């Protein structure tokens, strides 16, 4: 009896140990490096089953900040890059790491902060002026500080109003080095201001006293681009399937699917693909 139990356990252990290797089996898949905003909002969870249904390609998404996503793709660890910081994307293509960049969709950034609004920025239409006011009053602002698309945009805005946030780091300006959600958790805990993409904000559940204070400034426009990693740089890149995924996103069906996706009843991403890339 006991021998049988031990034998069963040994066989079970063997099975358990062997099985991680077996998941390597021939599923047709590509790896996409993308941003936390697309993952956290649930967009991929909505789109990817449709992609697989239409093309037979399983898409594996590694969701990190835009900076880290580009570093991954640069090393050849992803087949496709889907991020949101146009200047870096264009540089990525110019340096030969990507084949071509296509616009896919956009949404926007919003400024969130405590409902009490100590810096008095609610309802302002000029986001840069609002940031300047936050800086002038030394109201606590929480930054991603992680080289992500959101972080890069935020740094650009500070620059336009001549605020040196690096000098203020650690005082009223706090850099978390975390993803969007982690940063919102900290902003919520500190009752601080933060810049976030709308998708992550809509799906964020730990708002505490935070509320959306500013939206609609054209500078808060958030364009997502998609790039096939250059197979000339890394020969294992799955160029055919990667391009098929990109084509699907840009197709009428893909664009329609992006437009249909709802987050808390609101449209979170707006398709704007042009068939010609840059």
């Amino acid at each position, binding site marked *: 009896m006991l021998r049988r139990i031990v034998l069963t356990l040994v066989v079970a252990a063997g099975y358990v140990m062997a099985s991680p290797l077996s*998941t390597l089996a021939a599923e047709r898949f590509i790896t996409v490096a993308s941003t936390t905003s697309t993952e956290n909002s649930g967009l991929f969870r909505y789109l990817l089953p449709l992609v697989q249904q239409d093309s037979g390609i399983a898409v*594996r998404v590694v969701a990190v900040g835009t900076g880290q996503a580009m570093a991954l793709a640069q090393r050849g*660890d992803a087949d496709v890059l889907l991020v949101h910081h146009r200047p870096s994307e264009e540089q990525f293509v110019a340096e030969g790491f990507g084949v071509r960049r296509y616009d896919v969709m956009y949404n926007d950034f919003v400024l969130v902060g405590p409902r009490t609004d100590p810096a008095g920025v609610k309802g302002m239409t000029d986001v840069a002026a609002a940031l300047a006011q936050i800086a002038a009053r030394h109201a606590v602002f929480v930054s991603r500080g992680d080289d992500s698309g959101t972080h890069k945009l935020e740094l650009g805005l500070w620059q336009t109003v001549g605020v040196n946030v690096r000098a203020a780091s650690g005082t009223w300006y706090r850099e978390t080095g975390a993803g969007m*959600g982690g940063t919102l958790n900290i902003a919520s805990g500190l009752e601080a201001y933060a810049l976030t993409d709308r998708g992550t904000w809509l799906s964020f559940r730990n708002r505490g006293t935070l509320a959306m204070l500013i939206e609609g400034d054209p500078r808060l426009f958030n364009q997502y681009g998609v790039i096939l990693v250059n197979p000339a740089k890394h020969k294992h890149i799955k160029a055919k399937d990667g391009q098929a995924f990109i084509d699907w996103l840009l197709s009428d069906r893909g664009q329609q699917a992006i437009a249909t996706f709802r987050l808390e009843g609101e449209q979170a991403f707006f398709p704007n693909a042009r068939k010609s890339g840059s």
Partner: protein
Amino acid sequence: MDDMRAAFLTALGLLVGLDRDLVAIVWLSLRVSLSAVGLASLLGLPLGAIVAIWRFPGRTAVGVMLNAMMGLPPVVVGLTVYLLLSRTGPLGQLGLLFTPTAMVLAQSLLVTPIIAAFTQQTMADLYEEYAEQFRSLGVGPGRAIWTLLWDGRFSLLTGLLAGFGRASAEVGAVIIVGGNIHHVTRVMTTTIALETSKGNLALALALGIFLMLLVLAVNAVAMVVRDTAKRVYG
């Protein structure tokens, strides 16, 4: 406090409901961490025993190293394994990045020093009892190591369980080398990190409670097997 209560209720709901995604995540967590402990035992048990028994130059240094490496930061191990497995890294050809196998590798690096250090301690104590008999019977070191490992097998289980605890609890390494890909490399700890980042604190904590129950169950099974085996084989 509301979050805490919500977490316990959610955890209860998860246990009762057992949704398919969750079962897949739990199963992958178990597979990865148990495999890591298995792999780490293959390395750690002999390594610890050798260091305990063989007198070789630098033996103390190796012992100190093993003890220090029990504190390896998971995020550093993750980064190292990532650089090794990355397509431009030395093992990039294998295409193992962002697979469960990569996670097993990273976790076994974390667990091996724990098992080795624990084995070393257990074996050294046992060896003191047995050394004279070995000498009088003319038993060589290879045979001695095997005998000690076999005789100490019940105590060594604690080292394996400590290793399993370390593996199943860490998030820093697996999130880097696994990528937290839904349905492929998402395990309990990376799910908890993801739900925390979405602000789903109650759900995240509920998953944490679930993970702790899981580790408890594994430990309970191990103890029952040990006690039964002890009774039968003495």
